[in-house]
Every structure is written in C-alpha cells, then in structure tokens.
C-alpha cells in the first residue's frame, strides 16, 4: 500500500542499527506470536513499539535481549549475530543492556542499594565500597529518589519501584535501555515523571531506547520512531506524524482509543446485560 500521509516512514528493515532482527518468527506451541519480523533499532534514538494487549510487544522486546529465543530468524547486536550464542556468551552481551520490567522486578529480599548494586557486584571488581555508595547516590538522584537507599521494595509505591528499577537498569551505564510498559499502572502524573526520565536519560547518557507501551501520550512524548504491531506483524513504522496520519483503520482505531466497528458488532451480537446477569430472585423462585 502506497503511503501518502504526512510524516516520515523510518522503516529500516535492512539497515545497520545497533540491534537488528531479521525474519524473526516466534511460536509458542502452535501459536505464532511474531510473524516474520524484520527491523533495525537505530543507535541513539528512542523507538516506541505500540499495539493492543496480546499483540506480541513484550515478546518482541524480550527478543532484543534474547530473554526469549526466536523459533527462526536472526538477531544481531552491533553487527554480531547473538541468537546462536550460548547463555554464558549472552551474559556478556547483556551487560550492554538495561531492562526496565513492567512490574519493576526488583528483588524483594534486597534493599534499594542492594538492588542497584546487584549488576555491579556481579560484573565488577569493587576495590572501594565508598565509591559504590556514591554511585548508588548518583543513580538514585538521577531518578529523583536519593535518600531511599535503605528502603525495601515492599515499602515503595508503584512509581517509586519503577524509578528504582530504572536506576538499577542504568547501573552499568548501558548502551541500550529497554522499557516494558514503563507507565502501565501509574497515575498520569507519575507516568509523566517516567516519560521525563526516559527523555532525561536519552539526553544525558545518549542511550538507545526501546519502549513498549500502549499509552499514546507517552509514545508521542518520547518517540523518535513508532512501530505498531498487530497480531505479530508490523503494520506501521514511522515518526509520530506518520503514525498520526496513517491511513490503516487499525492504526487509527488504536491511536484514538476507539473500538472498531467489527468489535462493536461482536458486542451487540453477544446479548444484553439484562439477559446475561442473574438476580437473587431467580434463585428464590427455584427454591
């Protein structure tokens, strides 16, 4: 389909991005979750992956760091093929990444300081623990939580947990940060705090970011490029204006948050609420 809308199509299928997926297919049993995905993540840019729940966004982002391996296809990081490496070799590659999980995935049994120093303790010789303390302080200051060093995850709010998780994700100064639904479950103000943090990290650390979200406010705010996934396929790929003006009805329904005519028809066919619900008197009559 020829695109005639405004904005720029930034599809770099066969480009030389920092992370490249080539013809990636992912199946869980017989279910195809990713269908022949090819894309290149550009260095130093923020790429946002949008799409309805269950379309394969999280599966896609986990393929970028090989937390999931493709059923077929290839994954490259800085030109090196990584989908065929063993876990030991991948662990070295993964130190170049930071990953913010949907729920934060902080370790419950460790304090904020211990969570942030976890990757440092695993990969670095630590001659001076005072330096580590300073590092934790600076990372927490970056996400606006200096002073929370001795807290445990259970004592933090949802937004604070995500910010601590972000501080942990940047502990090793990664080249790539992957965000899985960073604003899900947060109120609009906390969501905006996270969006500002993503932009701040982008500005100050010049990292490559990949954000998976279905929050369009967040997507428009942080994205250099937006990719829309639908049923495991990329159906739109371009900058924010390109996506806003995209002619595909599924894209338009999604970005405007409107239910499609087909879905409405299914809802109308499935009966009325009064037919579906049971009232106490229905049971009383039986008795």
């Amino acid at each position, binding site marked *: 389909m020829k695109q005639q809308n405004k904005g720029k199509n930034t599809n770099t299928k066969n480009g030389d991005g920092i992370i490249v997926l080539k013809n990636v297919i992912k199946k869980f049993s017989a279910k195809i979750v990713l269908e022949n995905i090819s894309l290149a993540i550009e260095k130093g840019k923020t790429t946002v992956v949008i799409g309805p729940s269950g379309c394969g966004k999280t599966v896609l982002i*986990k393929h970028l*760091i090989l*937390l999931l391996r493709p059923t077929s296809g290839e994954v490259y990081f800085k030109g090196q093929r990584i989908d065929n490496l063993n*876990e*030991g070799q*991948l*662990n*070295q*590659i*993964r*130190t170049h*990444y930071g*990953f913010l*999980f*949907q*729920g934060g*995935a*902080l*370790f*419950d049994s460790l304090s904020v300081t211990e969570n942030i120093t*976890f*990757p440092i303790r*695993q*990969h670095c010789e630590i001659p001076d623990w005072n330096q580590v303390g300073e590092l934790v302080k600076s990372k927490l200051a970056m996400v606006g939580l200096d002073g929370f060093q001795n807290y445990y995850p259970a004592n933090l709010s949802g937004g604070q947990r995500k910010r601590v998780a972000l501080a*942990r994700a940047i502990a*090793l100064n990664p080249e790539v940060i992957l965000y899985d639904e960073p604003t899900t479950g947060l109120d609009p103000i906390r969501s905006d705090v996270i969006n500002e943090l993503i932009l701040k990290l982008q500005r100050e650390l010049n990292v490559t970011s990949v954000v998976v979200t279905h929050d369009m406010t967040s997507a428009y705010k942080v994205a250099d490029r937006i990719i829309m996934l639908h049923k495991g396929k990329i159906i739109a790929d371009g900058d924010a204006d390109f996506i806003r003006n995209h002619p595909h009805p599924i894209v338009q329904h999604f970005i405007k948050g409107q239910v499609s005519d087909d879905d409405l028809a299914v809802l109308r066919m499935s009966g009325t609420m009064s037919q579906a619900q049971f009232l106490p008197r229905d049971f009383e009559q039986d008795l």
Partner: protein
Amino acid sequence: MIIGTVGAKTIEGVNNMGRFARFAWQSMIASFRSSISPCTYPLIWTQMNIIGVRSVPVVMITGAFVGMTLAVQAYDQLAGMGLEEHLGVLINISVVKELGPVLAAVMLAGRIGGALTAELGTMNVTEQIDAVRSMGTDPVRYLAAPRVLACLLLTPVLIIYADLMGIIGGYFVSVVQLGINSRAYWDFSASGVELWDVSIGIIKGLFFGVAIAVISCYKGFTCKEGAHGVGQACTEAFVASFISILALDFALAVIFKAIYNTFWQIKSLV
C-alpha cells in the same frame, strides 16, 4: 484419539525429563563452581541459615517422636518373647539407618522444598528471574547453586540431629517409661549398631539434600503464571521430592548392602 493423547503425553513427559536432567546438570556444575568461588560464600551462608539452622527444631522433634513411637510399638512383641532388653538395637538401628534419615528428609522436603519452590516460583512470575538474566547473570548460579549447596551440606547434619533425638526418645520411653535395664539397653545397642549403619544414614542425607534442592528449584524456575501456578508448583515439588527420597532410599539400600557384603566384612579379617 486415545493413541494421540497418550503419544502427546509421552512426548511431553520425555521433554520434561530432558529439561529436568539439563537443569540438574547445570545446577551441579554451577554448585561446583560456586563452592570454589569465595565471592559466592555469603549467598551460600545465607541459605545455610535459612535451610539449616531454622530446620533444626522440626527435624529434632521428628526424630524424637520416631524413636519414642518405635519403642512403644516394638516393646510388646519383644517382651512376649522375653527379649525386651534387645529393644535398644531395634530402635537405634531403625533410627540411624532408615527412619531417621528418611523422615527427616521428608520433613525437609515439606519445610524447605515448599519454601524454595514458592520463593523461586514467585520470583519467576514477577519476572525477577528474567531480571537476573537481563543483567548478565546466570540465575542457576545465583539462585539455584547456593540452595543446592546449602541442602547438600546441611541435610546430613540435620539427619545427625534427628538420629540423636530418635536415640534419646527411644531411650526415654524404653528405660524411663517401660523400665528396661539401662545398662542392658546400651550394651545390646552397642553390639548391634555399627559405625557403618550410622554412616550410611548420613551419606543418604547428601543424596536426599541434593534431590530436594534440585527438584524444588526446578519447579520454581518452571512455575506457571499466577497464584495457582505457584501453588501447583509447590505441591508438585513436594510430591516429586517425596517419591525421589523413597526411590533413592531403596536404590541406596541395595547399593550399600552390596558394598557392605563385599568390603566391610573384610575389615574384620584384616
């Protein structure tokens, strides 16, 4: 239809066995590497405290009741034949060789195995294990190996506690309650229970400890989503650990009997 279902279940079973065997092998390798890497000792020490120290009371209570129950049950049969002074041999050999190790291990499978599976299962469903991997760390080495090592090292020690309390419990009921002569009780016990009997009970503890830890960690790592998934994994971990303890006990009894018949009796000739 039936053939297809049976075939699919068989293939799934073989796949699961393969995955478990690979996990067990990775755990063994990771445990060996952790045991020679001083930077992982604090993790092992923490697990030893959780797994070992906090299990001492329940294991001691288990051992004491085993000894006391044996004394009550066996007294009438032996007294009927006028052999009540041999009660010590019966109780002590049963406790140190079979019942102490097996029942202590079953108790540990419930206490430790359930806790390990629930902890790792929750970490799995809240993506904490993926978080470990995403930071370039092997979760088997970081999470499973310290637990396997702690179980390997401390299950034999806990079995010694269970044996000790079983012996004391048996003595208490036999001598204090049932009035058997104390000197005769110990003399017959000493003549009937060899170092070999005590040793194999403790050696069994090494195998039981590894089985409990590896099965529980595997079930936690492969736990399905949600509260139901974690609960199901805990149940499966206990059942699998329990069956493994009984199967290992049988296999080790056969092996140790063969070793005893071949080598231990030569000792008296030397």
